[in-house]
């Protein structure tokens, strides 16, 4: 891969995995401005780290999840960066028709549940819902598969419990 190929290859890869970016931003930020800020921060870091990406060590999606979640958790915890756009102006990196569409009640419920979770649990639920296997989740988060299974099982119980409380 030559230097001149990088932007096109990078763009293609991001385009193929744009859903990861969209879902991580939605899980960690409530308003659109913050989501856009986070999307820009993540994309910027993806670009900076792209030269070090080694497809033999992990898949592009695993690599992208790691960066996106690391940035999202740091962003979520930091103060004073919420209004700072990496890219100046009124341009948006990520536009979605889905923003204007009303999601189904079930998906809305899921987002409500995710919103109340701590940043690490958010990552677990997101990875699980996205269909990642336990070994994949373990690889992204940095815990053992057994730990991942336990954590997800607890989150499932918590969700059931919370739904029960809301219904009564």
């Amino acid at each position, binding site marked *: 891969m030559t230097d001149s190929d990088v*932007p096109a290859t990078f*763009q293609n890869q*991001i385009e193929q995995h*744009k*859903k990861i970016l*969209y*879902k991580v931003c939605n899980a960690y930020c409530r308003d659109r401005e913050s989501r856009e800020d986070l999307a820009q*921060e993540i*994309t910027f*870091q993806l*670009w*900076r*780290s792209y030269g*070090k*990406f080694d497809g033999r060590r992990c898949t592009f999606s695993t690599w992208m999840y*790691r*960066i996106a979640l*690391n*940035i999202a*958790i*740091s962003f979520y*915890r*930091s103060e004073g*960066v919420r209004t700072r756009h*990496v*890219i100046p102006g009124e*341009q*948006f*990196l*990520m*536009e*979605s*028709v*889905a923003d204007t*569409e009303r*999601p*189904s009640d*079930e*998906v809305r419920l*899921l987002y409500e549940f995710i919103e109340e979770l701590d940043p*690490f649990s958010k990552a677990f*639920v997101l990875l*699980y*819902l*996205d*269909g990642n296997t336990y070994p994949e989740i373990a*690889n*992204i*988060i*940095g*815990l*053992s598969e057994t*730990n*991942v299974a*336990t*954590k997800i099982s607890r*989150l*499932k119980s918590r*969700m059931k419990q*919370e739904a029960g409380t809301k219904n009564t």
Partner: protein
Amino acid sequence: MDIDVLREKWVEQDRKLDESIHMNGRLLTMANMNRTQPPLRRFALLAGLGTLLGLMFLIILGGFIYKHWAEPRFALPAIALHVWVIAYVVTSIRQMVAAFQIHFDQPVTAVQKQIESLRMMRLRVLRWALLTGQLVWWIPLLIVALKEFWDVDAYRILGPGFLIANLGFGVVIIPAAVWASNKFGERMGRRPAMQRLMRELAGYNLRAASRYLATLNEFEYETRA
């Protein structure tokens, strides 16, 4: 509400997302992405700048100590400053190295621990610098600067009483500053800069960082249980 049932709905929405999300390709290009530095890189560069300034100070102070080695009244304040600057340079280098070692493509728990440890290091240094700085950056600096730049003897023109009183004030102000920041830090809501300073002195942010690190460890431990 079963997460596995909802997962199917999630997958359904996922399929729609492919068509509904549009990425702004132009903004994804290198030129646009290079306009700014990420916070960690900026932090590392600032630490690097601090190190450079510190090294410059060390050279100047080293020369002064060498020149006035036989006069302890001038050499001792310079040594105090020198020791302070050495500690500052060492911690700046440690912070810079730690910041450069963080790679966001590593597993989440590892990266978050590194980031929080760096934050704790930064907060400790800042608190230490704020508290001890007033001891060396007032009277010792005054004595050294007057002698070095104007060849004026601070002991003679200001008098030992003035110097001792000010040094004593510097010693007293440290516990007083910690006490005041603990007592009033939370009430300074209308002045963000002052509130930040008070919070740093009181160690609120340091404690918060420490709690977060403990939560991270607990998080790993909890899943093992």
